[in-house]
C-alpha cells in the first residue's frame, strides 16, 4: 500500500444520507473474482440510465467532477452490505477520501484497509463543505485536519493504529502475521471449549 500523507483535490458532493453499498456498487457487478476495474460500476444505477448511457444530471457525470479525489457524502455513508467492492470501486474511480458526518462501521474498516480515507466531521463543517463543493480541499492525515480556502479547517478522528498504517503504507496483515507467537500461545491456553469439540464433530 502506498503511504498517504496529504490529499489535495477538488471536492464533489453527494449530500444524500444513508448511501448504501448497493448504491455504491450494485450486486450484479460483484460476480467477479478479481478486484480491478470496478470504478466503471461506481454508483452505476445513479450514473447510467437503463440503456447504459451516462445520466447528465448526476454529479459524477458533470465535467467539474472529473479528477476530484474527495467525495463529500451524506450521513451514514456505506451502510448495508460488507462488500469490499465498494471501497475498491471508489478507489478505482479515483477517490482517495470520503467525508461525511457518519460512516458505517464495516465500510470504514474496509476503506481503511485499502487506503481510502474516511473523514468524519461535524454537521456544521460538513454543510460548509457541501456548499463549497467543487473547491479545493486539503486533508492532512498527519495533523488529522481537513481544510478549505473558504470553510476553514476541521479535525477528524482516526485510530492511532490506522493512521500509523496509512502514513507508513503498512497493511494490517503484515502486523497480524507478526503476532504468530501470541496466536499460537492463545491456541494452546484457550480452553478448547464446546466450540472446538463441536467443530471437529467429536
Amino acid at each position: 500500500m502506498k503511504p498517504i500523507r496529504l490529499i489535495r483535490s477538488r471536492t464533489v458532493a453527494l449530500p444524500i444520507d444513508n448511501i448504501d453499498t448497493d448504491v455504491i456498487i450494485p450486486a450484479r457487478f460483484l460476480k467477479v473474482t478479481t478486484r480491478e476495474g470496478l470504478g466503471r460500476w461506481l454508483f452505476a444505477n445513479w450514473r447510467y440510465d437503463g440503456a447504459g448511457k451516462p445520466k447528465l444530471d448526476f454529479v459524477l457525470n458533470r465535467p467539474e467532477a472529473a479528477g476530484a479525489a474527495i467525495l463529500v457524502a451524506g450521513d451514514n455513508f456505506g451502510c448495508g452490505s460488507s462488500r469490499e467492492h465498494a471501497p475498491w470501486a471508489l478507489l478505482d474511480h479515483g477517490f482517495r477520501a470520503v467525508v461525511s458526518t457518519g460512516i458505517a462501521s464495516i465500510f470504514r474498516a474496509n476503506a481503511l484497509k485499502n487506503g481510502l480515507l474516511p473523514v468524519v466531521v461535524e454537521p456544521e463543517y460538513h454543510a460548509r463543505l457541501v456548499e463549497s463543493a467543487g473547491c479545493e480541499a486539503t486533508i492532512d492525515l498527519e495533523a488529522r485536519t481537513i481544510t478549505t480556502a473558504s470553510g476553514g479547517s476541521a479535525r477528524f478522528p482516526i485510530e492511532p493504529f490506522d493512521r500509523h498504517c496509512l502514513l507508513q503504507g503498512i497493511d494490517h496483515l503484515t502486523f497480524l502475521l507478526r503476532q504468530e507467537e501470541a496466536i499460537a500461545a492463545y491456541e494452546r491456553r484457550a480452553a478448547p471449549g464446546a466450540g472446538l469439540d463441536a467443530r471437529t464433530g467429536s
Partner: protein
Amino acid sequence: MKPRTLFEKIWDAHLVRDETAEAPAILYVDLHLIHEVTSPQAFQQLRDRGLRVRRPERTVATMDHSTPTTPRGPDGRIPVTDPQAAEQIRRLESNCGEFGIRLHALGSEGQGIVHVIGPELGLTQPGMTIVCGDSHTSTHGAFGSLAFGIGTTEVAHVLMTQCLLQSRPKTMAIRIGGRLHPGVTAKDLILAIIARIGVAGGTGHVLEYTGEAVRALSMEERMTVCNMSIEAGARAGMIEPDDATFEYLAGRPHAPREGAWDRALEAWRRLPGDEGARFDREVSIDASDLAPMITYGTNPGMAVPVSGVVPDGGDLPTLRKALDYMGLEPGQPLLGHPVDVVFIGSCTNSRISDLRQAANILKGRKVAAGLRVLVVPGSQAVKRQAEAEGLDRVFREAGAEWREAGCSMCIAMNGDQLRPGQYAVSTSNRNFEGRQGQGGRTFLASPLTAAATAVAGSIADARRITDRP
C-alpha cells in the same frame, strides 16, 4: 470481578492480545463462514503471499449469493447458465480443494444461505466468535455468540491468522417487554426496533436483545431479529442462550455429543450477563404495542405499521428522494397498494417456520392474477423439510414458484430480480434502491404479510384474512 455482559464475556475470552495505545485488540475467530462472492480475492491474497490457511477446520464454505435457484435439470443438477456465476462457483470449489476447506457445494445436502446453514448444522454455538464476509452474520448472535460481518481483506486475515484486529465496540441493550400479539412476528419486531433507533442508531455498538418478549421467541424468530441488527448500523446483535438455544442445538450434526455436550452446556450456562452488568446504552420497547410493519422507503428504518400511511417528512432531501424512487406520496395508505412480485425467502425469513406461516395463509387459496410469487427455502435442509410436510404442494397449488435454496431475489445477482418499476413485498432485509433489481421497488414485511399480499395482489394485513377457505 466486575459484572460482565454476554458480549464482554465472549470478547474477553477471545483476546489473543488486548488493545494497547498503539494497536487494537487481536480477537481469535472460532468459526469462519465463506461463500463464493466475497472470498475469491481473499484466496488470491493467500496465494500472493505464498501462505496456507492457518486453521482450515475452522472455515466452512457454502454457495448462495450468485447461484441460481431455478429447478434442477433432468440430471438432478442445478443448471448454472451465467458464466460469471459459474466461474465464482468453480473458484470456490478449487480454493476449498486446494486449502482443505469443507464445502457445501451447490445443490448438495448441506448447501444453503450461509446464515441458514451455520445454525442448522450446529456449527453456530453459544460463546463463539463467528465471522463471515457478509453483513448479516449478525444472525448467528441469536445463539449467544459474537458474530459479525467482515470485508474480503479481513476474510484473508482470518484465513491466514484465524484472527482479526478489532477495536472494542460499545454495548446497547434493547429491552423488549410484553408479548407480541398473534399475527405480529419477529420480523415486525425488528422492523419496529430499526424504525425506532434509526439505520445508524446502532453504529459502533453490539446490540443485546433482552427481556420477556425475547425469551418467548423461538430460535428461528431470534435469528430473524439478530439478522437485521446490521440494518440499524450495529456491529452485531446477540441474545443470551437459554434452554430454547440448547434444545435447538442438541443432536445437530456439529453439536457436541455425550460428555462434550455436558461440558459445553455447563460453559454455555455461564454465558448470560452477570447481575449488575452495565450497558453503554439502553432502549426499551413494549412488544405488546406493536403491529405488523412494512417499509415504505429505501432503507429498512423507513417502516410504519401496515395499516399506516406514508409519513410526511417535509423537505428532508433523503426522504424525498426515497419517496420519488418508490413512487409514493406522503399521506398515502400502504394497505391496498398494488404489487407485481412477492418474494418469500432470504436469510431473514426462509426457515421452516417462515414457510409454514406463509403456507398456512396460502393453503387452499390462489395467488392473485398477474402476480409473481417466489418461495425460496433458505437451505436444502429447509427445502427437504418443507417438502416432507407438503408445503411445496401448497405453494405450487396456490400458483407460487417453489425454488432451490439460495439468496435469490434478496440480492438480484443470480437471475432472480425485479424489472424496473416493479413493486415487491419481500421478506428479505434490504429495500435499498436497486437491491432487488435495477429500478425495482421493495416493501419489506413478514412472511405473513407477504403471503396475505400474494393472495390479495396488493399490500394486505394477514390479520384480516378470516375467510378460511
